[in-house]
């Protein structure tokens, strides 16, 4: 199919874009279009107007500043993935991005677009929850910072209001003594995850002094696996503690049976992926030490 009729504007500044969004509640921002245009082609979405963000220079670019990586909303996923300074500051980002769709999509898809789209199976939102990142939202006359865990509310639903623009994503750098891993199971490489897990494991004297685990694809939004984290804290990242963490992860898989997988299968995946990612993250933490 082809999209329904809409108006199209490509403003040059965030202020102009915000004004346009405020004047028409059915208007939508257009970023890379890699989710929005196909949904319009299917007529699942029929915005009255598209506010194309491509000419707004202020939304472009990214920088490592101390222990935070600041990413402009319109940064292309592929550009972030290939940036060496970003890879040094937090190699988890490139590992996660390698699983987002395929290169041609990442050439166009933006970081802000993926976060704002907030698919429950998407990898980047899961990474933002795992790392404890934040999202910057601007509206006419104001700006607020929202923690990732408060930002994602439900599948394709976020704390952003229609009059707000996501302007920046802030991702913490990898803390010292910390290993990372992301793994997912999908029907084919490049598909959204049936289940994916992001792990950050900090080791001190052989035991976990900090653990952060988040999963995508298993619930209605990217989810912190708090009980699994608790099982590992203060223990070595293996043996009984790892078994308890893997067991605890099962209960976070709540997505109903769908054409691709049953809830039971997703429970198994969550558990297996926690085992694999924690083990890999712990290995990497030891390598870094």
């Amino acid at each position, binding site marked *: *199919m082809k999209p329904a009729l809409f108006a199209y504007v490509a403003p040059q500044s965030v202020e102009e874009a915000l004004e346009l969004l405020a004047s028409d509640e059915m208007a939508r921002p257009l970023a890379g279009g890699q989710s929005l245009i196909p949904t319009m082609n299917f007529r699942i979405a029929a915005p009255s107007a598209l506010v194309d963000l491509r000419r707004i220079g202020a939304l472009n670019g990214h920088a490592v500043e101390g222990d935070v990586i600041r990413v402009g909303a319109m940064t292309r996923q592929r550009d972030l993935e290939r940036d060496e300074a970003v890879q040094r500051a937090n190699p988890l980002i490139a590992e996660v991005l390698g699983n987002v769709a395929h290169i*041609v999509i990442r050439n166009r898809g933006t970081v802000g677009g993926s976060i704002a789209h907030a698919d429950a199976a998407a990898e980047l939102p899961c990474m933002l929850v795992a790392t404890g990142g934040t999202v910057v939202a601007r509206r006419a006359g104001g700006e607020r910072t929202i923690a990732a865990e408060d930002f994602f509310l439900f599948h394709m639903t976020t704390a952003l209001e229609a009059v707000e623009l996501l302007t920046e994503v802030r991702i913490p750098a990898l803390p010292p003594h910390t290993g990372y891993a992301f793994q997912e199971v999908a029907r084919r490489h490049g598909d959204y995850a049936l289940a994916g897990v992001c792990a950050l494991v900090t080791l001190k004297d052989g035991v976990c002094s900090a653990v952060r685990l988040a999963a995508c694809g298993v619930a209605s939004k990217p989810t912190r696996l708090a009980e699994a984290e608790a099982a590992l804290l203060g223990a070595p990242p293996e043996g009984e503690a790892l078994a308890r963490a893997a067991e605890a992860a099962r209960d976070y898989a709540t997505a109903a049976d769908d054409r691709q997988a049953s809830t039971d299968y997703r429970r198994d995946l969550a558990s297996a992926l926690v085992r694999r990612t924690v083990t890999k993250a712990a290995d990497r933490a030891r390598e870094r030490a």
Partner: protein
Amino acid sequence: MEKTITVTVNGTAYTRTVPLRLLLVDFIRDECGLTGTHIGCTYEGRCGACTVQIEGRAHKSCMKLAVQADGKEITTIEGLGSRDNLHRLQQAFSRYHALQCGFCTSGILMNAVDFLNENINPSEAEVRRALVGNLCRCTGYSHIVEAILAASATRHGLKPVPPPAETEPPP
């Protein structure tokens, strides 16, 4: 709900007044008359047959509006090589029998050219990964992968895996 835009395709500037909802792939095919860019799925970015290069990067032209390409430079399969002067990758595709019906081929070539520009010496696994967004329903991909690896090898002066031997057609 129309806009006048200028898009440069294969070095030629096309100025057209188009509906805002016109997709770039339809602009290329219907306004520029360049029908080597194909449509294989329902405009959802699955099949990759519409892949073109925008400012040198591979993009799927079904997920972009023509108005978004205003002022941009685009290369389609027609701009990659000519019958007498095939691009290195086109030559490899021909030698390695990397196509059968040919419907997906232009999209795969436009993707692979960008991929090889970015990946100096890719592994077979990397080539296969790079092709997940391009559906081919004839070849089973083996010859496509071999052709791309061969094109990469010849660029570095390496000796590629030889192409399949020419066989006599069955009587």
